[in-house]
C-alpha cells in the first residue's frame, strides 16, 4: 500500500512509517500484530493513534524505538526518522537516537521506574549522563520538571513505591521531556491522572511543543482527549489502519463502522442513563483492505455490506436495539 498522506502544514515529515508489518512468532501460534501500516508525522505535528485494545499500537511505538524483543519480527516495511533509516541504525546510533531524538512514555510507565532509586536520582541521572550537566544543575532542573507535572519537588526524595500511580506516570512524563527530543511518543500517558491534572499537563506539553517545535505520537483510548489535542489521527483495528484524517474530521464525520462505534460509545455527562454497547457481539472485521480517499485528506478502508450488518444488529433483541442507537449514530 502506498497511499502517502500529507502531513500537517507544509513541513517535511519527521517520522515516516511505510508498510510496517510486525509478527510475533510463537511455537504454537504466530500473530501479525501490525499489518502493512503507513503514516507520517510532520514537524511540530501531534498525531493520534487510537484503536481496539490489542490492535498493535504499542507494537508500532516499540518498533519506532527499535525496542521489539525476540519473538517479534519486523517482517516488512520501513521506518525513517529525519531521512535516516531507523531499521538500519547501529547500536551506537540507536543509543543517541533513543535519548536525544526520540523519547517515549511507555504504557507501563507506572511500573517502569527503577524501584531502588529515588525519583530525584533517576532524573538527575538523565541530565548528567546525556546532557553532561553538573549534579547541582541537574538537581535544580529535576525540581523544575516535577513542578511542571504538578508534583511537589520535595518528592524528589521519594522512591517510586511511595508515589501514587498517577504521580509515577507524571514522573515518567517529566523524564521523557527532560532532554527536549524532536519526537515524543506517549503511549497511554494519562490513564491514572484526574482530568484536571491531565488537562494542565497536556496543555503544558502542547505549549512546550509549540515553543520547541517537536512532534508527538499520541496513543490513547480517551477519544475526547485525542480529538482535542491531535492535528491528525488514525484509527486501527486488528493490526490495520481503518481510517485516518484530521482529528476533527474523524470526530465530526467518522466513516468506518469501527470508528463510528468508538466515537459513539462514550457515555454522556448529561441527560438520562441510556444503555450503550460497543461493537455488538460477534462483529469482527477481517481482511481489511487498503485505505481509499473519501474526502481530501480523509482516508478510509472500504468495508463491505457484510460489515454494515452492524448497523442493523445481528441478533437484534429489543434491548440490543436500544443499545445500538447509542453505539452507532
Amino acid at each position, binding site marked *: 500500500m502506498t497511499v502517502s498522506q500529507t502531513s500537517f502544514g507544509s513541513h517535511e515529515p519527521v517520522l515516516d512509517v511505510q508498510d510496517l508489518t510486525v509478527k510475533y512468532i510463537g511455537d504454537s501460534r504466530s500473530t501479525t500484530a501490525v499489518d502493512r501500516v503507513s503514516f507520517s508525522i510532520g514537524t511540530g505535528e501531534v498525531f493520534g493513534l487510537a484503536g481496539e485494545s490489542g490492535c498493535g499500537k504499542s507494537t508500532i511505538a516499540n518498533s519506532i524505538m527499535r525496542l521489539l524483543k525476540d519473538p517479534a519480527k519486523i517482517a516488512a516495511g520501513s521506518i525513517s526518522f529525519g531521512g535516516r533509516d531507523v531499521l538500519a541504525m547501529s547500536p551506537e546510533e540507536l543509543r543517541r537516537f533513543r535519548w536525544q531524538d526520540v523519547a517515549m512514555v511507555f504504557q507501563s510507565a507506572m511500573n517502569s521506574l527503577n524501584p531502588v532509586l529515588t525519583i530525584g536520582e533517576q532524573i538527575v541521572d538523565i541530565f548528567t549522563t546525556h546532557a553532561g550537566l553538573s549534579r547541582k544543575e541537574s538537581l535544580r532542573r529535576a525540581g*523544575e520538571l516535577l513542578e511542571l507535572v504538578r508534583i511537589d519537588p520535595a518528592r524528589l526524595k521519594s522512591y517510586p513505591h*511511595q508515589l501514587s500511580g498517577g504521580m509515577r506516570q507524571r514522573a515518567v512524563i517529566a523524564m521523557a521531556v527532560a532532554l527536549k527530543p524532536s519526537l515524543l511518543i506517549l503511549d497511554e500517558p494519562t490513564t491514572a491522572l484526574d482530568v484536571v491534572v491531565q488537562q494542565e499537563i497536556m496543555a503544558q506539553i502542547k505549549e512546550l511543543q509549540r515553543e520547541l517545535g517537536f512532534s508527538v505520537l499520541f496513543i490513547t483510548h480517551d477519544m475526547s482527549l485525542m480529538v482535542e489535542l491531535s492535528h491528525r489521527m488514525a484509527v486501527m483495528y486488528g493490526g490495520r489502519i481503518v481510517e485516518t484524517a484530521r482529528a476533527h474530521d474523524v470526530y465530526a464525520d467518522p466513516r468506518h463502522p469501527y470508528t463510528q462505534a468508538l466515537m459513539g*460509545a462514550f457515555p454522556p455527562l448529561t441527560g438520562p442513563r441510556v444503555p450503550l454497547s460497543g461493537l455488538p457481539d460477534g462483529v469482527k472485521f477481517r481482511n481489511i483492505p487498503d485505505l481509499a480517499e473519501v474526502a481530501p485528506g480523509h482516508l478510509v478502508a472500504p468495508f463491505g455490506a457484510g460489515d454494515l450488518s452492524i448497523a442493523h444488529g445481528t441478533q437484534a433483541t429489543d434491548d440490543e436495539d436500544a443499545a445500538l442507537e447509542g453505539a452507532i449514530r
Partner: protein
Amino acid sequence: MSHSMLSTSTGSGPARTDTPALEVRGLGKSFPIGGLFSRDSVRALHGVDLAIGRGEIVALVGESGSGKSTLARCVARLERPSEGSILLDGTDVLKRDRFQASRAFRSQLQMVFQDPFGSLNPAHRIGHFLRRSLAIHGKGGRSETETQARLEQLMDTVGLQTDMLDSYPHELSGGQRQRVAIARALAVEPQVILADEPTSMLDVSVRIGVLNLMRRLRDEQGISMLYITHDLASARYLADRTAVMFAGELVEEGESLDLLANPAHPYTQLLVSAVPDPARAGSYDPVRRAELRQAVMASTSCAFDGDPDQPCSGDQPVRHQVGDPGNRHWVRCHLYRPRAGAGGHALAADPAAGPSADAGISVHAGPPASAHPRKASA
C-alpha cells in the same frame, strides 16, 4: 459522624438490607517519608467514612494522589490503616483477623489493581493465575473438565480468546492484561469487588462491555463494588453513587446523576469543568480555572453560611446536605480544608501559585525552563 445514608432505596438493584456490604469508619493512614530517621509523614487518608450497600456500586473519583488506591489497599488489608475500622458485612475485620487477611476474607472481597503491568507475575501463564484463584477458593468444580469450562467462560466474559490462557503476561497488551486482572477477581465470585481503574486501558467499545458486565454481576448476583476511576462519564454510567476524594478526605458524595449535575464542592466543580469534550475543544479558560483553584485552596465562603439548620465550620469537617434528601447528596463545608501537608496534592504543586495559596493565584503557562519561585514546602 457516620451517616446512615443507605436507608433510602434508589429502586435500582436488588433489595438491600440495612447492614452495608462494606463500611469504613474514620479510616486514616499516614506514611513516613524521607530518610530512616526523618519524622516527616504524608497523611494519605484522614477520617474517611464510606458505606456500600449490598448490590450497590459506588464510584470513587478524585485528584491523582488523593488517597483512592490507599483506601482500597487498606480495605483489602494490603496496608494497615493508622486508625479507623473496616466492617465487612457488619463484622469488624481488623479485629477478627488482626494481622492479615484470612482466606475467608479473600473469598468475600477481591481487588483489581491499578497497574496491570505490575500485578501479574511474569513467570506464569494466564491460565495459571485463573486456575489458582479457582482452586484456592474452591470454585474450580469437581473435575478438570469443569475447571477448563469455567476458565473458558471467564475469558469469554472479559472478551479474551481462550488460547490466551497459554500466554505469558508479557505477551499481552495493556488492555488484555487489565481484562485478565478482572477475570481473576471474578473467578473467586466475591461479594465485594474493589476495582482500581480497571478499564483505563480499554478502548471505549470494550470498556462499555466491561462496565455492562459489572452492572450485570451486580444485578444478577448482588455483588457490591467500589469503582475507582478518573472517567467521570463512566462513573455516571455505572455507579449508583459517586464519592469525591480530595487530599485524603471525602469532600462530596451523592447519587451519581445528581452529584455530577449539581456539583457543590469547589473541587468537584473543578473536576467536572475539566472533563475533555471535543465539542468545546480549546475552551480551556485559564481565568475560570484560576477562580476554581482559588476556591478549592482558599475558599472564604460557604454556600450554607447563615443556614441555621446546617451551621458551617472551618475546624470540623461538617457535612451539609445538598438538595432533596432522597439524593443522599452531601458536601463538606467549604470553609473546612485539609491540613497542610496532607496527601499528594497536585493543586498545591502548581508552579503558578506563589509562595502561599492564599496570596492569590496568577495565571501562568510558561515554559518549564524559566525559574519558578519555589513554593514554600508545605
